[in-house]
């Protein structure tokens, strides 16, 4: 049975062996001292308490009543960017621990007890009122990006694909145009596409990653109903958070619709010759793997089983439990899109794919822990700059926003671009 409450994680808390692999890249992938760390909060706050191991231990401490939800405990809990890098590193060797799920369970317990930050509350209140996680935005303006585009409104018409822009692409300055671009381009390439019209709203995925389980479930329920009513066979989204929400979080609630990131669809269209890049872009870029598209973007595998010990004490699961270790995340599609752009040169950073460094915006940390969020983005820019690239490209608007406003360790900015921007220039 999948663990749902903090108490359910007690066996994992006691079985974590304090190896602290959760603070580093998979060791065999470390290329340098400078860029060897993986966990933003452990790297920023330094105390072990802020690592996945620390949180397993903290979980025990809190359940045992040996500490209250003190100010520092709340900081340690909410400073998890929910990026999942600890999860990958842990699963290099462990087959019975789920550190990311536990981190989120800790957040949920804190939220239940009212232990969260004003910035988080503002976003959740906005979600409740305006169906978006972006305070200040109005639901009435959510689908303005689709005006006059002629897209099918799925509340009235049928289409194979639902285009789900997500909050950032719906409202963001400079991003709404990109949503418009993607939707138009895909449609022009022959994809049978629509959007949810007035039923369009936030996926709620970030609320879940912040520990606001109830708010998430409310959003998910509404979205699942809308999607089911629309009868689409697939969702396509330019937002990695939304991608993760539909593919993994909604799947646990029974949504059985194929989910695609626009980069996946674009890669397919390129391969089929339905999309062609005509213009050259003379630029060297490096690609930042969004956590929710990469290691957290693996397909959901239903499981309902129990632990079973064999040979006295060896832990197995009956039936075998899916291991989300980042193996099947979306890494190659955005790279193949970039590589297909004439003139564009792709240089890789040291921390990529399943062991990529987070941008710092995950887990709602840009709301709860802005200093951590900014330091994490700064670290990424420093790494990006070390490749010699002119720009850092990503496939997630949350990453983009965080990277855009950051400076590297030397106080220098770096051009951060959405993959859309390059695709738009190249077609």
């Amino acid at each position, binding site marked *: 049975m999948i663990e749902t409450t903090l108490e359910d994680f007690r066996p994992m808390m006691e079985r974590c062996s304090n190896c*602290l692999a959760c603070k580093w890249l998979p060791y065999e992938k*470390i290329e340098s001292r400078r860029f060897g760390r993986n966990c933003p909060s452990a790297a920023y*706050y330094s105390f072990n*308490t802020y690592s996945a191991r620390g949180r397993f231990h903290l979980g025990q401490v809190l359940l045992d009543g040996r500490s209250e939800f003190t100010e520092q405990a709340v900081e340690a809990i909410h400073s998890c960017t929910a990026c999942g890098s600890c999860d990958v590193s842990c699963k290099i060797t462990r087959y019975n621990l789920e550190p990311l799920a536990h981190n989120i369970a800790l957040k949920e317990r804190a939220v239940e007890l009212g232990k969260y930050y004003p910035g988080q509350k503002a976003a959740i209140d906005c979600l409740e009122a305006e169906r978006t996680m972006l305070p200040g935005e109005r639901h009435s303006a959510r689908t303005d990006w689709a005006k006059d585009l002629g897209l099918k409104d799925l509340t009235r018409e049928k289409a194979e694909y639902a285009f789900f822009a997500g909050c950032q692409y719906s409202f963001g300055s400079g991003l709404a145009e990109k949503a418009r671009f993607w939707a138009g381009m895909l449609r022009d390439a022959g994809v049978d596409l629509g959007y949810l019209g007035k039923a369009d709203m936030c996926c709620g995925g970030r609320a879940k990653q912040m520990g606001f389980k109830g708010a998430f479930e409310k959003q998910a329920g509404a979205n699942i109903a809308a999607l089911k009513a629309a009868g689409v066979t697939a969702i396509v989204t330019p937002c990695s958070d939304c991608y993760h929400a539909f593919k993994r979080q909604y799947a646990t609630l029974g949504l059985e619709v194929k989910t695609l990131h626009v980069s996946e669809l674009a890669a397919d269209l390129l391969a089929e010759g339905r999309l062609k890049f005509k213009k050259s872009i003379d630029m060297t870029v490096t690609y930042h793997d969004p956590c929710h598209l990469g290691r957290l973007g693996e397909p959901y595998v239903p499981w309902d089983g129990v632990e079973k010990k064999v040979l006295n004490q*060896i832990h197995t699961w009956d039936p075998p439990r899916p291991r989300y270790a980042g193996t099947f995340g979306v890494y190659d599609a955005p790279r193949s899109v970039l590589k297909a752009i004439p003139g564009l040169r792709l240089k890789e950073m040291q921390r990529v794919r399943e062991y990529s460094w987070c941008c710092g915006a995950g887990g709602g940390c840009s709301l709860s822990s802005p200093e951590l969020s900014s330091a994490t983005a700064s670290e990424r820019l420093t790494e990006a700059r070390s490749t010699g690239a002119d720009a850092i490209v990503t496939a997630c608007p949350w990453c983009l926003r965080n990277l855009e406003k950051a400076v590297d360790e030397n106080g220098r900015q770096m051009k951060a671009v959405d993959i859309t921007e390059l695709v738009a220039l190249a077609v």
Partner: protein
Amino acid sequence: MALEREAYRAIEDIVGKRNVSEDSSVTETYRCITSQSSAHYGPFNHQTPRPQAVVLPGSTEEVRQVIRICNRYGIQFKVASTFWAAMGYVGSDRAIQIDMVRMGGVRIDAKNMMAIVEPYAIGAVVQVEAMKFGLNCNMAGVGCSSSVLAGAAGWMGFGPSSLFMGIASENILGAEWVLPDGEILRTGSLGSDGSWFCGEGPGPSTRAVLRGWQGSTGAMGVCTRMAVRLHPWPGPKLIPTYGEVPSYKADGLENFRTYTLCFNEWEDYARAFQLFHEADVIYLGHRQFNMFGRDIKGAMLKILVDSGGQFSDLLPLMDDPYVKSENEKMKIDVQIVLAGLTERDLAYKEKAVDEVLRQTHGWKSEFMLDKEMRDFVLLYLLRLGRKNLNYTLCSSYEGNFGMSSNVFVAAPLMEEASALKRKWEQDTPHIAAVGGDSDMGSMSGIGGGGTTGWEFFVHFDAYDKDSIRGTKEFIDDSQRWMLSKGLGADMGRWNADARREDGYDYTQEEHDAIYKNLPQPAIFEYQWKVREAFNPRHLTGSYYRTKTPENVK
């Protein structure tokens, strides 16, 4: 118990507010849960004491100032970096934990083949920085996740590479220590002109008092910087890998060879070790995968090499006729890696291995010659990045029958030690039933050969109180058996004289009682005198073993 406000404020002033905490959420998570983490004094269902504060110094000077505060107020302190074992945690309620996480520097002096490291430079990063210059570092069996400096200063530090590269303590060159009284000692050439290359002298080596054989276990001040000797690395600047997470494999290291050597008899095994100790052919030598247990190691390897592998595959794989038959052939085995520094060198080493096998009636496991298996094992042994596989079967392990001595004594005892463990596996449900023999360890416990560095792994469930208790009973039985053979302390009880079963420090009276009947008690009497000279306020706990000299009342 809270620290005096003055002491806490002083520490805050030294390291800055954000680098010290006495919040219960932090201090509680700096306790060692002795069933979850390697303790080497027995698996217990308790935690070490809660430190009064956790302090993260950022420089040698900050360390010194914090220790001076400790001296002033009589506060014990314990230093750790990567927190692998119980020895890194405090042993009293009147103590602070010093976490060296902020000091992680590494500098490579390529020409002179050394790395100058700070405490939080883990093996993985020292190694990759060294490899850029054609160099490698000894990686202690604890794995690349642990601090190189802590391994060298605090414990023995042998592993796959120690036959060729020497063990951690042998690789220490110049070192900088903040002594328990707050003075800074720089050993060897470092003290006089800042050169790191020599850690000895002038005259008698002051390093004598810093670590010994067993290591200081964080009980002789804080080592803040150290030069460690590096060794040849005839591979690329970065080891290329292939394969999906988590089954990464080394890619294209053409001048390396990876073999599992197998033998019919332990006598042949010991003789092969002797020949390898005498010859300069082995780059890495470790009995590695037997740590899972004699009966299951082949099946486990099949799981690990496959990125989709699951432990639920274990029993079917164990029944697979091919795996079963190959596993049986690997009953008495050791993994080796040859590194060709030149083509001739590799050819010579290959021949030498074949000749040793000829003389000892050994063979190379075919099962382990499969390309993916070979590449997996090569990456595993080169990087030692998977130490947590020690825990993977049941979630925890402890060492029992351990031999850091004569291979000709240890090897013939293997079957008896296996039989004892197998009996416990069969008679109780508390430890994993993996075939008795779960011996693993280094081809040599010292550089150039001469001793073993072996221990049996006992796998148990840290979440299962019966399993913890049963494992402790087994280790006690193992200890009785070892004593009956005159073999000294069982690995699982190595630190049983350093920390009480309840996790607290021993008193001096308790230590005196333990050590009074030793054949040469002067050892601990001199350690008492050294403590009096360098740690007069006794601030570092009872891992520093002492016996009150007879003439001191």
